[in-house]
């Protein structure tokens, strides 16, 4: 069911609906779907009716494992991919596949792989100069100064401008990529796993940079990651994706301390923890199915420790978990609270043995 319909239904029944979009919403994604036709007339549903909005100055964390569609959503937002259906709105204006230069500048992406996100044959200065000139962002006399400012912003020395990508480490390349994104003076940055390919000691610096971009420059950030620790640190709100859909979203602390979707709980339980010495027993079995063959009903039900008959028949929609905080989950059992900070499942009925939680994957 489309998000707008759900909203209307709630409005009619005078119950709190899913949308409490932070105002003013800067970026809105409405019922975004991306389907690819594959052989034998089947459909690959990379993204399936995803809706969310991001307010100005917010950091929204988009969490999910590989294949959940988060990168596809990112590519749609920046205009790299044309969605099959759905609407993208920036400052209330629709974004189509052909965008004005101002709109393209307004939303910039930072990519995951620092080793393929920079043109190996262009120096840093060349990249920045070109962007500044093409968009007439500063007069010619001010270009060099602006380049230095950008280097300063990301914490690189001025002589980095002369360098080619091959001379820089992964962390430095990411900073260059961020400088490039900042050069066109965007309002939104979509960061697609920007620290996943970096060493731990370097991640902290880049994360700090993103924090500063948000707190000091007021940039709106959509931070995509599979790493819950990173998302928890940076985001104000979080959305969890699975097989192309958002299965849970809400205020960060509400989602992390009281996850209401079994998949979110599984992610939390599986997240590596520094001082954990006991093996984290997997709470989900098997692996995600192909996005060509999405299971009926709730897409997570074949792997879900909590699944019951209703789950394979009836696809749950994102609805409020009714805790007062803004928190939605797409699960028939969303009203069951988590047991502990690790998101442990509530125990099933007494006659079911602990086997169901410990079943071999």
């Amino acid at each position, binding site marked *: 069911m489309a998000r707008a319909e759900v909203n209307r239904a709630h409005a009619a029944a005078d119950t709190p609906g899913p949308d409490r979009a932070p105002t003013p919403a800067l970026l809105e994604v409405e019922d975004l779907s991306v389907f690819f036709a594959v052989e034998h007339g089947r459909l690959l549903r990379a993204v399936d009716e995803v809706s969310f909005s991001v307010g100005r100055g917010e950091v929204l964390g988009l969490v999910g494992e590989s294949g959940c569609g988060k990168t596809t959503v990112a590519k749609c937002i920046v205009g*790299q991919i044309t969605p099959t259906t759905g609407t993208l709105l920036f400052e209330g204006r629709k974004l189509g596949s052909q965008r004005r230069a101002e709109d393209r500048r307004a939303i910039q992406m930072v990519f995951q792989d620092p080793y393929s996100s*920079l043109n190996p044959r262009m120096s840093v200065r060349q990249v920045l100069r070109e962007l500044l000139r093409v968009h007439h962002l500063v007069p010619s006399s001010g270009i060099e100064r602006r380049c230095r400012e950008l280097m300063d912003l990301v914490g690189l020395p001025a002589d980095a401008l002369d360098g080619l990508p091959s001379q820089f*480490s992964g962390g430095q390349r990411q900073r260059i990529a961020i400088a490039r994104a900042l050069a066109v003076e965007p309002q939104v940055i979509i960061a697609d796993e920007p620290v996943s390919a970096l060493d731990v000691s370097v991640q902290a610096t880049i994360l700090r940079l993103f924090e500063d971009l948000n707190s000091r420059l007021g940039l709106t950030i959509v931070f995509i990651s599979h790493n819950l620790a990173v998302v928890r640190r940076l985001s104000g709100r979080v959305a969890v994706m699975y097989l192309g859909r958002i299965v849970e979203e809400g205020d960060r602390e509400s989602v992390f301390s009281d996850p209401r979707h079994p998949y979110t709980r599984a992610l939390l339980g599986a997240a590596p923890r520094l001082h954990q010495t006991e093996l984290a027993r997997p709470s989900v079995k098997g692996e995600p199915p192909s996005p060509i063959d999405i299971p009926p009903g709730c897409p997570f039900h074949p792997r879900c420790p909590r699944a019951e008959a209703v789950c394979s028949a009836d696809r749950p929609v994102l609805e409020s978990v009714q805790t007062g905080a803004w928190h939605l989950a797409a699960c028939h059992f969303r009203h069951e609270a988590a047991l502990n900070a690790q998101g442990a499942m509530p125990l099933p009925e007494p006659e079911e043995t602990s086997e169901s939680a410990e079943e071999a994957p």
Partner: protein
Amino acid sequence: MSTALASSAGLGDSEAPQTVAGRPGLGSRALHSPTFMAGAIMTTTIVALVVLAPVIGRYSPVALDPLHPLSGPSGLHWLGTDELGRDTWSRLLYGGRTDLQVGFLAVVFPFCFGVFIGTVCGYFGGRLDAAVMRVVDVVLAFPFFVLIIALVFVVGVGTHGIYIAFGLTDWVVYARTTRSATMIARNLDWVAAAEGGGLSRTRVLWRHILPNTITQAIVYSMSDIVIVILAVVALGYLGLGIQPPAPDWGSMITDGQSFLQSDQWLAILPGIAVVFTGIGLSLLGDGLADVLRPE
């Protein structure tokens, strides 16, 4: 604002700047590549020699010296003479001039056109790409030399024929390699970043992608020059190339054939010249591949 982020995040000293200094420039890499240096020296030698032909060639290549036919090396004729008394040394130089000139020039159009069409096909794909690739397949399916000879027959002997024949057939290799390289580059993040930064597709294609995809074409062009020279030599051998009395290595080898028993050097010397040039250009191409790689 400019210093706010850096100092607050303590980023200034995290990641020392010395990584930026000390980058080996193209020139220094060139000097350190033995293949490149060998190729460069050999090619430069040959080019210098033929360019200086009017200066160091002692006779006109068509001047006859009926008094000294088929003579061996002497003070008068450094490398001897052929059956008509023409000075071999001068003929080698002027012949090289012709061959190298044709070699280079015949490659220019295929290179430019092939790289252009390959880039466009690789980037845009679609029907244009499909159509062009079918043409490429057809051209590639033909045995190369048969095609050249047929075209030369149609168009006429001499350098014009060679230019046209190569122009029609040689561009396909450049188109293919550039197309593949472009297709790969098209999916890379930095291209997406350039497009997302609001740069026009034309700009991205020619200013960003092309410098990365043209390397293979450049390297191949070196071998291509060798191929052209060999083709000219072969055509000359068949009598379809440069017409006498203008000298070229191919016809010199043909003429020298009759004298293999007695005056072998007449055929062997131009042969050595061809091999030397070929090796030099190939090494240069190989070396360029090393040097131009963005590490």
